[in-house]
């Protein structure tokens, strides 16, 4: 892990994103109790319309929890408040280079926190989910999310639910009503297919959702605020795509490939609610792209031209986080691009459509019809599209135990990839973080042999 720590401290923007991800609880407490803002629980990257209300704060529920090592992160945050993030980052890098034992240990602990704390918390929430009635045969994501709401659900003023093709997902949202003192639920139905005037219905459903948010907020919806947010959201998406497609496909990385995978993991997690502050997140993303490009320009980093590119997907419902590290040790580089598979990194078309709600409806309908898909044929094409776009040498498909939706497209995908891309693929089963690391190592070892 120290290998990654060494690299990550050099990216101050990434440190900021990670810090904001992990110290969400304090930030959100301040927003809720001092600034009297309302918290809206969101999951998957569906936070955008909440940003139409300045007094509402979207939050991916894991971020309301207290993470281990929080104390160190507080020190780091305090230091950053006084000296600025860049100076703190440079200072940490400097100390690291000196090889001072204790300080090195603290830095490692901080970075370990960034990397491990979220996953550790996920496992804790998973157990709470099962203890509170979610049957063990549901996927990791659902069990953990339910646990998060059992544990901290009282902090939310509302839960924003979008229906998607996964029936377990939709039922999970309903099941949140069984939690004592649970928050108000706001439902936005995304029609499964674009038939008839389905798009118009989606616009109406979004407006209905907005009027529910108005009731929570107490303020009237203002289209200019939402339009401005969508501009920010699109900038975030462009930065994200730039990291995915300009950097990850290149032969020279600004850091070692395992660290690069970590960056993608942190982005995958934080993109869901933009760490509750879209402008701050946009600035950090812009800076991150800049820092990465600067490092590459200055030839700081690593030649990865001989390392096969392995796409690992889907990981948003749960996956073994050691996977990319193992792949790196076996001579490969792991890439994560779930949100673009589902077309959630596409621009919200506000340049073409003046009503932001209508523009967002187009964005969601496109993701539903062509990304997530109403069936596995479409979803298979989505995975295929990204594998092709990233020009990967192999694909590892995470077969999530209890996933009856996405996981079931692997047989189709395997066939299509073998036939049309002529690259190897492998399914890796997953139930809970840390449960099968040795098995994962063995299977990845066999898979990576193919590239030698």
């Amino acid at each position, binding site marked *: 892990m120290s290998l990654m720590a060494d690299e990550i401290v050099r990216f101050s923007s990434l440190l900021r994103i990670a810090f904001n991800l992990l110290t969400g609880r304090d930030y959100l407490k301040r927003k809720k109790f001092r600034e009297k803002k309302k918290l809206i629980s969101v999951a998957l990257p569906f936070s955008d319309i909440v940003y139409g209300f300045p007094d509402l704060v979207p939050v991916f529920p894991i971020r309301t929890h207290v993470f281990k090592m929080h104390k160190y992160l507080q020190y780091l945050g305090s230091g950053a408040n006084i000296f600025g993030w860049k100076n703190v980052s440079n200072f940490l890098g400097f100390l690291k280079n000196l090889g001072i034992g204790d300080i090195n240990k603290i830095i490692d602990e901080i970075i370990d926190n960034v990397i491990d704390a979220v996953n550790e918390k996920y496992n804790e929430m998973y157990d709470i989910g099962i203890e509170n009635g979610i049957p063990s045969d549901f996927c990791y994501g659902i069990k953990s999310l339910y646990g998060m709401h059992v544990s901290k659900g009282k902090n939310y003023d509302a839960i924003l639910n979008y229906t998607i093709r996964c029936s377990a997902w939709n*039922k999970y949202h309903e099941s949140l*009503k069984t939690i004592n003192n649970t928050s108000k639920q706001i439902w936005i*139905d995304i029609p499964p297919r674009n038939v008839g005037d389905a798009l118009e219905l989606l616009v109406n*459903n979004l407006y209905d959702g907005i009027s529910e948010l108005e009731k929570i907020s107490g303020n009237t919806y203002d289209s200019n605020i939402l339009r401005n947010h969508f501009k920010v959201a699109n900038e975030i998406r462009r930065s994200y795509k730039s990291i995915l497609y300009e950097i990850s496909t290149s032969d020279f990385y600004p850091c070692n490939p395992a660290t690069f995978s970590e960056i993608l993991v942190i982005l995958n997690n934080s993109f869901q609610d933009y760490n509750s502050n879209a402008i701050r997140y946009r600035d950090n993303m812009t800076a991150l792209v800049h820092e990465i490009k600067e490092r590459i320009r200055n030839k700081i980093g690593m030649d990865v031209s001989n390392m096969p590119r392995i796409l690992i997907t889907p990981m948003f419902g749960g996956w073994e986080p050691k996977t990319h590290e193992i792949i790196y040790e076996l001579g490969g580089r792991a890439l994560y691009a779930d949100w673009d598979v589902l077309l959630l990194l596409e621009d919200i078309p506000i340049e073409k459509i003046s009503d932001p709600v209508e523009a967002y409806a187009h964005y969601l309908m496109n993701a539903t019809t062509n990304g997530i898909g*109403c069936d596995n044929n479409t979803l298979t094409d989505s995975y295929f599209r990204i594998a092709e776009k990233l020009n990967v040498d192999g694909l590892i498909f995470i077969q999530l135990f*209890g996933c009856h939706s996405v996981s079931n497209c692997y047989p189709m995908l395997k066939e299509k990839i073998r036939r049309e891309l002529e690259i190897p693929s492998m399914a890796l089963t997953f139930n809970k973080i840390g449960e099968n690391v040795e098995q994962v190592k063995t299977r990845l070892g066999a898979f990576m042999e193919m590239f030698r």
Partner: protein
Amino acid sequence: MDNLELLSEYTLFLKEEKQKGKKVVAFISHDNIPEELLDAAGFIPLRLMFAGNDELMDASHDYLSPSTCAFAQSCIGLFSTKPNHFRFLDLVDYFIVSNHCVSDICASEIISKYFNIPRLNFYLSYTKNENSLKYFKFELLDFKDQLEKIIGIEIKNEALMDSIKKYNNFKKKLLEFNNLNIRGSEKLRILQKAILYGPIFLPELESYTLKFSENQIQNSKDLKDVIITGCSVFLNDYLIELIEEAGGNVISFDTWIGNNYYYQIFEETVINLTKNPFDLLVRRFENNLYGDHSVPNFLENKVSQIEKICQNYLEKTGKKLRIINHIIKFCDHISLMSAYLKEQLQEKGFPVLNLERDYSRANRGQLSTRIEAFLEMV
């Protein structure tokens, strides 16, 4: 309880219908498929309502993960292995891909894709409000278009209205039959056969109703009365036998093959006052409050419905109903809510057994023990 005779009769029936030039449209048996539209277009609707076994489930694992609903696995297994008495599946001309749940989508899509059966689409919203009803109508019209492209002629509103009336009358007769006080296994056998055949079974159903109305159970005080909710008990399933062997008697099937099907009826006045038959189908979707597809009120609707059934039964017979919540392993809808359904009903004083199982034979002993213990305890 192998329904070999029924299945071979059904094969003959389908063959005869095919010889008349009719085409067969199969679908995974959920409660929102507009079979009246299929009927009006001259198709034979074929509900996949057959229980699985180890071989069928195993055969599906080439196509999807074993952690998928055991019923969906078995449906794929049927097409993959085509057991002798299921040869009629070779007669299927089209398959409907629908989204009752995601396993419905996956299994239907796999059947269509890998067994070369042209696909029809019919999807539903998950929520139920004004907009989802409008969406349902869009899907109905799209489905009508898909069918018209196949038959090459327009499906007239009059023909659809006739089919709606025909199915409505059939469902009323099923409800009448369901209200008879007879052994659950006997009742289920007739209900399954009737729902498989559809309204063409009506004369036979009427004669069964007449026959059984004269032979109802007179003294049932030794029987432990049960309501089955959750997942359906499909053809060839041994579950009902286990319940009866344990001294139970199922008086109500609160499932797809049961209440969800024949409670979806219209009053005559509603039919007569509605000009557009599609509005009737939309209305039926709206009124289907107890089906498990929709969110976010499934749980509270289901609890209040079961509570009402149990209370009515207590008032009518002085007997308490035991509730068996039948959960087919990996069922998204029933399984996820099972702990909460049980908790809420037990708080109201109703005994509930959450009976989770797949179709493997090895489960039989364990299921039997659990059912016996539950019925004994209550």
